Structure formats: C-alpha cells, structure tokens
C-alpha cells in the first residue's frame, strides 16, 4: 500500500506520504549529500541516498601522480582525522617496497593517529549533541580539538588537511613546544572528556533520543561490511589495530569497546570509550619513547625520503635523490598490496596495484563512510524523522570520505 502512495504524483490529493529532501544543504547533513525521504507524518518510510556531490575522482587522479603526491589526496577523505589517512597511505607504500621504519617512528605515528582518532570522535559525538539540540557540550570539546590541531600544526604546519609525514617517517622531528602541547593535552583532556560525558551520557532526554534510534543488528552490519565504531556498537569486536596490527599496535595494551544494540546511543558510548582507550595508548607511547634516541624520526631510505636541503647542496647522492623524488621519477616495484588502518570511522583500506612505474596502476580507497551510508535506509526506515537526523550524525558520514 505504501508503495502505491509513493508512486502517486507529488500534488495528488490521494497521496498520503510526503517527499522531503534531507540535504544537500540541510543542516543535518554535515557535508554535501542528499537523502530523498518519503515520510508519513513524522515517520520515515524509506529514504533514497544520493552520493557524488563532491566526487573528485581521487582514484583516477592518483593514477597520474607520483606516490608522494598522493598523500594530499588522502587528506581530503576523512578530513576530521586526516593524519590517519596520511599514515595509512605511507604504510601502504612501505608495505609495497618492504621498508622497515624505526620503532620511534611507529610510536610517533601512533601518538598522532590516536590524537586524530580523538579529534574525529570528539566531532562526531559532540555533533550528536548538536543534532539533539545540546549545543554546549560541542563547544567544550571543540576547544580541545583545537589543541590537537595545534599539535598537528607544530609538526607539519597545517591543521585540517595535514599532509603529515613522509614515506618512511616524518619530515622533521617534533619541536619542543609541540611536545609541551602534547603533554598539556594529556594533562587536561580527561577532565574535559569526563565533563562532556557528564553532560550527555546519563542525560535522560539524550538517552531517550538515542536509545533505539537507528539500530542495526550485528548480522546486518556485517552483511553491509560495516567496520569501525559503527560495527563495534552492534557487538562485534573487530578492530584493525588488533586483528592485523600495523605501526607496532601489537605492543600496546588497550581494550576494544563494544556495544550491544547497535543504536545511536551505543555508537556514542563506543566512541567515548575509544577516546579513553586512545588516551591510554598515547600514554603508553609516551612512556615507550622515554628511553629512545630522540634524533630518529625517519627510516634510512634515501630513495624515498627527501634529503636535507643542506645535503642537497653539498652531496652528490643527496642531489640525485632530491631530483628524482621531487620530479617524481622514483619507480616502485611492481606488485599488488592491500593495507588497511583503523581510521576514525572504520577500516580505511588502500588497495594499490603497481606496474613498476612512478605512479600507481590502480589505487582504490576502501572508504568506510561509503559503506555506512548504503545502510542508512535500513537504519532509519520505520523510525521517526528526528531519529533519522540523529542517526545520520551518529554514523558519522563525512562527505569527503563518502565521495572520494
């Protein structure tokens, strides 16, 4: 019967449902994508998702770019946690060429990646608050996201689209004031996160809004091949950091928070739990770094790692490598490699096919948001319109990652 009504013309008197556009410029779609919803009163009957508003053909562009120049493209995927994307890409290349990076680089990367995860989850969880009408927690935690951005800034000079690091390590060692900022962050953050949780987690209205909204079962989530916090909220403890460790994650002691119902509230709790775990990981990484030689910040791989400028002027080899890297003349061995990292939103995979040239033959990003968004209809159909809005912000669809 419902189907019949959907087929009716928009201005027909017999039509009982309304078509409503959630997006592309609706404030609930944090980014540019569209939902064409069929609603009966306040109840969502079905929604049709439209993607592609900011499709930039990254995978195609990447085919004409030297490897080091693909890093900025990965920035623009999930721009809330750009460093994870950057490092993931670097690790993919390192996997392809079999490059071992020093332990210290691993730990530095872990620190930045976990900071990025915290920043990503802060955005997502506080935006759930905004979409339910609680604006104040949002501003509390955004101050601390800002501090994370300042840390990025000290390391690579930029904030949102970081383009951080190089193949084989970092472009420079962390400056002293950045270390100070990191320690400041570590000192102050738990109190803020605790306050944030106090404001929302046990708030009756917030719980009423979130519990049961946009629920999906573990089985359905796996069938959609969902990963990350959204899958863990359904009760599946899949985390790339544990199941196929990279960047020495196997040396760290942390838990995987899981939910049970797979609804908005569980996603929120899982993300909050992950922030605490990320905090613990950073603490451990800082401890591990204490006894290490603090001058190491990149692998000894001259053919990939850009030499120092002073060396370029004085040393023959450095000049050659500098020329080759800058002009993008470095050939990579032929091969096929898949590497994935636990991005802010889930398993962010890089499938790289190299034919031995200076550019990828084919590069595919496995973008978790793209997958979540396909399941959106299933999550919201039958629920209320307000639930759909909260669900959309809780699955954290980032337009950049959705459309690549």
């Amino acid at each position, binding site marked *: 019967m419902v189907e019949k009504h959907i087929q009716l013309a928009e201005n027909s008197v017999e039509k009982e449902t*309304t078509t*409503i556009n959630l997006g592309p410029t*609706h*404030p*609930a779609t944090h980014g540019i994508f569209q939902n064409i919803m069929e609603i009966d009163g*306040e109840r969502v009957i079905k929604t049709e998702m439209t993607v592609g508003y900011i499709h930039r053909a990254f995978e195609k562009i990447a085919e004409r770019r030297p490897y080091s120049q693909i890093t900025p493209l990965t920035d623009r995927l999930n721009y809330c946690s750009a460093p994870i994307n950057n490092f993931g890409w670097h690790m993919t290349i390192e996997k392809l060429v079999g490059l071992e990076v020093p332990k210290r680089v691993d730990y530095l990367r872990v620190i930045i990646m976990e900071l990025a995860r915290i920043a990503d989850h802060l955005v997502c969880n506080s935006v759930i*608050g*905004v*979409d*339910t*009408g*609680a*604006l*104040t927690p949002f*501003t*509390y935690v955004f*101050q601390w996201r800002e501090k994370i951005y300042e840390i990025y800034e000290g390391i690579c000079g930029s904030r949102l689209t970081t383009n951080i690091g190089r193949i084989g390590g970092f472009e420079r060692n962390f400056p002293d004031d950045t270390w100070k900022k990191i320690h400041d962050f570590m000192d102050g953050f738990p109190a803020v996160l605790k306050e944030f949780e106090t*404001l*929302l987690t046990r*708030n009756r*209205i*917030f719980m*009423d*809004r979130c519990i049961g909204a946009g629920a999906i079962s573990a089985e359905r989530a796996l069938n959609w091949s969902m990963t990350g916090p959204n899958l863990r909220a359904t009760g599946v403890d899949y985390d790339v950091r544990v199941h196929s460790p990279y960047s020495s994650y196997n040396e760290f002691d942390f838990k995987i928070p899981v939910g049970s119902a797979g609804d908005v509230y569980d996603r929120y709790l899982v993300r909050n739990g992950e922030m605490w775990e990320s905090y613990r990981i950073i603490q451990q990484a800082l401890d591990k770094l204490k006894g290490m030689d603090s001058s190491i910040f990149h692998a000894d791989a001259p053919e990939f790692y850009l030499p120092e400028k002073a060396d370029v002027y004085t040393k023959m080899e450095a000049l050659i490598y500098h020329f080759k890297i800058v002009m993008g003349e470095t050939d990579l061995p032929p091969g096929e490699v898949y590497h994935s990292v636990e991005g802010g939103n889930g398993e962010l995979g890089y499938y790289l096919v190299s034919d031995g040239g200076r550019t990828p033959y084919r590069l595919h990003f496995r973008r978790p948001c793209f997958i979540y968004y396909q399941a959106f209809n299933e999550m919201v159909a039958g629920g*209320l*319109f*307000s*639930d759909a*809005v909260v669900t959309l912000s809780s699955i954290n669809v980032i337009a950049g990652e959705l459309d690549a």
Partner: protein
Amino acid sequence: MSIDTFLILEKIILVVIIIAASMGVAAYSTWAERKVAAVMQDRIGPLRAGPFGLLQPLADGGKLFFKEEIVPDNSTKWLFMLAPAMFIFTSLMTSAIIPWGPDFVINGSEGARTVALQVADINIGILYVFGVVSIGVYGIMLGGWASNNKFSLLSAIRAASQAISYELALGLSLIALLMLTGTLSLRTIVEQQHGFWDGNYFTWNFFKQPLGFVIFLVCSFAELNRAPFDMPESESELNMGYHLEYSSMKLGMFLFAEYINMFISSAVLATLFFGGYNFPWMDQVQAAVPSGIFSLICVGVLMAKVVGFILFFMFVRWTLPRFRFDQLLNLGWTKLIPLALFNMLVTGAVILFFFNKK
C-alpha cells in the same frame, strides 16, 4: 455616563510603557541569551557593539530592517504577511492583565487619585491568559502553512499539536491553584500573596503548590517553544521550521515575539506563584517610603523575579538536548496531565478536610 478622560489617558500611558518595556526587555533578552550562551560555553559573546556588546540588539534590529524582503512565489501572500504580525500581537496581549505593582496615589489639584499599575483588572484574569495562549498558535500555523514549504508545514503541525497538548496540562495545573485562591483575578491573587510570611506559613503560592508550579513551568517551556521543547524550530531537523522562509523584519518579528512571550510568561509565573510584586518585609518598606517610590520598588521586585525566570529559561536552553516529538507528546499526555489531575485531587482533598471554612 461620562468617559473618564483621565482614566483613558492613564491607561494609554500605561499601555505604551508596558509595550515599550516588553520590547526593551525582549531586545535585551536576545543580548542576554547570547551572553548566557557565551558564559556557559566558555566563549565571550557579543563585544564589539558598545560596551559589553550592549548595542548588539540595536545592531541586529537595524540589520533585520535593511535585509531584503523575500516573499516566496508560491506562498499565500496575505497570510504570509499576516502571520508574524499575529504572532507578535498575541504575544503582547497578555501583558494587559499583569499587575505590575500596587496602586499608588497621586495628589493632584482635583484631589487624590489612585492609579492602578495594571491595564485591566478583569475578573476572568487567568482565563484571559489561556485565551491568548490558545490563539497564539495561529501565528505559527499560518506562517508555517503560508510559506508553502514542507519543513515549515511540518513545523506548523508540530507547533499546533504541541500547543494544544500542553494547554491542557497548563490549565489543569492552574485549577489547583484556583481552588486555593478562589478567584481568577490576577490582582486578587497577587494581593493574597502579600509579604512573604503571614505568621503561619509562606504566603507565596509556590510554597502551597510546588507540584502545580513545576507542571506550569514545564508547560510554559512547551508553550514558548523553547528548548528542550523547541520541536517546531529545531534547527538541525527542520531548519528553523515555521520561519524558514521568512526574511528581514518579518523574521525579526517572529524571533522578537518569542522573546516577548518569554518575558510575559515569566511575569505570569512570577505573578501566580512567586508573589508578583510582593517581597519580604514589604510592610515596613511601605511605611518608610512614599507611595510612588514604594510602587516603583514593587515594580523593580517583579522585574527582578522576571529576569530570574528569563535567566532560568536560558540556562535550561543551553544545557539540555531537545525532546523527540513523540516523547514530547507522551510527556504531555501521559505524565503531566495525570500529574496535574492528581495535584488537583490532593489539593481539593486537603482543602475539604483541613481548611473547610464553613
């Protein structure tokens, strides 16, 4: 029957003052709202226009006046124009029956003359408030419908059903109060709450009807469309709802009327439950100062209470998330109305068994 020209003059002056004051309070409520939000969110708030940003409301008003008027092509034009006017009209109407202060005496050449600081003391006072509240929803409904926008329509539906549902609980919560006071006149109700302590018990109705007060407060949040009951506006779902298509001063009138509503309902709350212009030791003060000054002090006390309520409304808005629509109706119909009925029964029983004067 001659028309008392002096009375008409007096009332006109009073009306003008009250409307100007409502406008002024509403304007500075917008400033206060921003400052409160800023304080609660670790921000600074408006700062550039005048000292502490005090000229910000003027700047906002000026901006709204000079914005382009946009009337959607497919809207119902005259209703689209009428809606904001109706909204602001109904929001100002309630102020007529609020007693702003005690009477004071002017000694003129024609003898002493008592001036009441209330526009109209009608014997159905509270019902008048209900009447105005019940027609207040027309502005939103017409605006939402005339815009010819689905989000606005959805918002108008939400607003109307919310208003109708919460009017019931609002009315029921007051019936218990009316049983105590035995009158509908706001003036008499205020006079019954004279002072603060009558020797046996508090005089303010809040202490006699705490549950009724809580229900009334929650319902006034809902009637004001303020967070956590701001379903019709909910900017993250309906893009500001019924005033989505409005621009320029028509939008300004909608926003402004909401703040006037907040001011007036704070005044009603203060009058009904918190003693209106009464304050502790008022008799001693009255004996010490002239009647005009005393009236001014009383007005000041009422205003202080009103400001307190307005600040409370603001703190709540910047703390709590918003209800979902069905939860909101559930709260109204299945929690507040039974609670109000229960309150009514208890009050009735207590009056019958303990305070039966006959």
